[in-house]
């Protein structure tokens, strides 16, 4: 099959970017979206042109490195997958495909389709962890966790930090990402000691990075490749309220 791409190209963070169109031929349905881009990049290199820069690492939906805005949707048209899990069989022969980087003030474009997501790292370092003094490994079953809570905490813990929630949000809010972290640790016994401080610090760090405020549109949970629910945002709001007022 053949597809017509319209791709955002930008030399570096300081340059103005623009869309460039490409026709990609000999695409097969079994190719992943990235394999199609790899093929195009090979052709560009052979012609002595600069290949399209895009982020990727594991290419199996677990690392959270990839992320493209494809035809108006974060990670493309399907639900519950990352960009690296998208295949060309999801597009028609002759399809027009618009490929854009994540857009948010807090995620500046570095080059082409790559954005700087270190804002997420700074949020996590503000308290998205538990402090453990290393010592002997504790016995596995000494801390009991009820199964439903363990499951819910695990759902939140599946966040891979891809940033699709921010990219799709009309307010560029990072609430789903922050909520996943706060909720995950608030549900577990290990998270209790730093529970209050974590909620306060993570929200403060999020605001400082220039993410917007949540208006509960719910777009994030639809586009999240790990299908993390906005139930966790409700819990974050509760945690933050309690930590602030009590």
């Amino acid at each position, binding site marked *: 099959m053949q597809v017509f791409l319209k791709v955002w190209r930008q030399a570096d963070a300081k340059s103005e970017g623009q869309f460039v169109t490409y026709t990609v031929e000999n695409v097969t349905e079994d190719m992943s979206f990235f394999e199609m881009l790899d093929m195009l990049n090979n052709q560009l290199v052979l012609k002595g042109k600069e290949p399209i820069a895009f982020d990727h690492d594991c290419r199996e939906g677990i690392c959270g490195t990839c992320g493209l805005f494809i*035809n*108006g*949707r974060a990670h493309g*048209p399907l639900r519950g997958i990352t960009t690296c899990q998208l295949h060309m069989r999801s597009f028609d022969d002759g399809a027009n495909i*618009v490929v854009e980087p994540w*857009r948010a003030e807090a995620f500046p474009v570095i080059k082409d389709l790559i954005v700087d997501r270190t804002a997420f790292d700074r949020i996590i370092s503000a308290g998205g962890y538990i402090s453990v003094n290393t010592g002997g490994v504790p016995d596995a079953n000494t801390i009991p966790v009820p199964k439903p809570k363990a499951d819910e905490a695990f759902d939140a813990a599946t966040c891979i930090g891809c940033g699709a929630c921010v990219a799709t949000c009309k307010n560029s809010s990072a609430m789903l990402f922050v909520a996943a972290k706060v909720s995950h640790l608030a549900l577990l016994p290990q998270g209790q000691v730093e529970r209050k401080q974590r909620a306060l610090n993570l929200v403060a760090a999020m605001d400082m990075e220039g993410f917007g405020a949540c208006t*509960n*549109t719910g777009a994030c949970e639809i586009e999240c490749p790990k299908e993390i629910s906005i139930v966790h945002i*409700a819990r974050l709001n509760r945690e933050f309220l309690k930590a602030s*007022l009590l």
Partner: protein
Amino acid sequence: MNWFFRFMNSSVGKKIIMATTGLLLCSFLIIHLFGNLFLYGGPELFNTYVERLASIKPLIRVIEVILALIFLFHIINSLWLTLSNRKANPVKYEVNRAQDNSSFFSRYMGITGSIVFIFLAVHLSTFWYRFQIDHDGGQFYRIVTGDAVGFNNPYITGLYILAMILLGFHLRHGFQSAFQTFGLRYNKYGKLIEAIAVLFWFAIPLGFVLIPIYFGLLKGGF
């Protein structure tokens, strides 16, 4: 008090102000609609009802000031929210299929709210002003149904109908959103909240919209 200002200045704190003022405004809607129902009882009943309210003027004034403050907080805060969110997202996508992941109502809160605000300005400068200041010799029913600022004026009727439909849109998202903001949406009361939400986004705006429809379109006969 440091903690208080930090709370109020945070993004989540601002959302809590939005939700609190929004729900307080919702409770005002119930009281207002209840009063409006006296219109259906005819001129005498309605005029007597308004006179009764006038006899407790000091109390009414206090409530009006509180209500004005709630509106002010809601509107100023919504401006802050809308502008700072726009700043957080300055570059728009070339293609954005937002309709695939969020409701129309949730994406246009600022616009539906602003049209409700225009309506409020007209409403206060006509009905409220005449009821309070001009008084028109106690002929309140005539103010509401007459052709100066009342429902015999097609522009007034049209604006009221439009504004109430948009208020319904505003609350279609706003009511349940407020509970999400308080962290109370997903629990054993979830179904109850959804049921009450229908009252606020559908039944109450419908109650309001029937008044210009009945007195303007059906009875006014223009």
